[in-house]
């Protein structure tokens, strides 16, 4: 019980702040709460499949095959697969982080995880189609052509900057988070 309250402490603090905001500026406060409620229900609609798939991935896909296809030494194949999985995803970027934790547990290389996150954030296929419709093909395709190499370069640089020790720590932390027992 106490640990639950502690977990949600930040949420309650922000909620109280929004409450004060509403007292001082009624219209902005109410607008903020309405938008928050709306995006909360939107989230409840979009997100469940991500977490069900994450659970299925965790239980069914053996670590050995994940390492083979996306682990250290998976080369171009691993890069392409990470790009593809990220692009095929649906849902907001923050839903990609729990999925990354399962990837870490399964032995996917750090570089490929960052590529996956990059693809999730920039090249989701349904979003690109929508982008073409609203901003035009030349805008969307130019952005995509710059972004895809950019994602890979950022991933390579990041896995160089961040030391082996730190990566190990991040992986261990992910392990603990997925631990049910």
């Amino acid at each position: 019980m106490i640990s639950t309250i502690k977990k949600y402490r930040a949420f309650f603090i922000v909620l109280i702040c929004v409450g004060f905001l509403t007292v001082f500026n009624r219209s902005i406060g109410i607008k903020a709460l309405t938008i928050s409620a709306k995006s909360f229900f939107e989230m409840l609609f979009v997100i469940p499949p991500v977490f069900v798939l994450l659970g299925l991935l965790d239980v069914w896909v053996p670590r050995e095959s994940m390492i083979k296809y996306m682990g250290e030494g998976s080369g171009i194949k691993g890069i392409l697969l990470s790009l593809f999985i990220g692009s095929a995803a649906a849902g907001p970027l923050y839903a990609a982080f729990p999925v990354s934790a399962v990837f870490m547990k399964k032995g996917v290389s750090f570089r490929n995880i960052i590529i996956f996150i990059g693809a999730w954030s920039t090249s989701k296929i349904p979003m690109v189609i929508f982008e073409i419709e609203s901003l035009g093909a030349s805008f969307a395709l130019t952005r995509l052509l710059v972004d895809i190499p950019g994602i890979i370069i950022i991933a390579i640089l990041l896995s160089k900057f961040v030391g082996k020790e730190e990566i190990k720590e991040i992986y261990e932390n992910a392990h603990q988070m997925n631990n049910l027992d």
Partner: protein
Amino acid sequence: MDSYLFYGLTILLLAFSFYKDKKKSLMSLKKGWKAFENILPEFLVVILLVGVMLSVLNPQTISNLIGKESGWMGVVLAAVIGSITLIPGFVAFPTAHLLLQAGAGFMQIGALISTLMMVGIVTMPVEIKYFGKRMTILRNLMAFVFSFFVAFVIGKVVG
């Protein structure tokens, strides 16, 4: 519409999983729920912050700041706005379209869209939970800088 496709695929896989092994399937659902519960407190914070932000900013305010003539200053502003806010794509693209019509430049919109997608300051608590502070800051910083390059190319090609 892609959400429905995703639901269909998920239900199909889940059904197949249950057909194969009930115990394992229940286990996977439990794991999925655990992962969701783990992240829920941060989610809720993010959602409240986004609500406050969107209630203050509106397309008119933004397009006043990042007009065609605003140059690199406008690009910087657009990148900062894009980094702080978090707007789902199906709202962001039509909004960007409106901004362009209201006089924003392509280079500035390029910076806005790129940072909206790649940089997330409000979602940092979630990212830090999984990747740690240093890594999160580094990734966002690099994506921020990279967005200027994206803006530059879009400004040259499209603008």
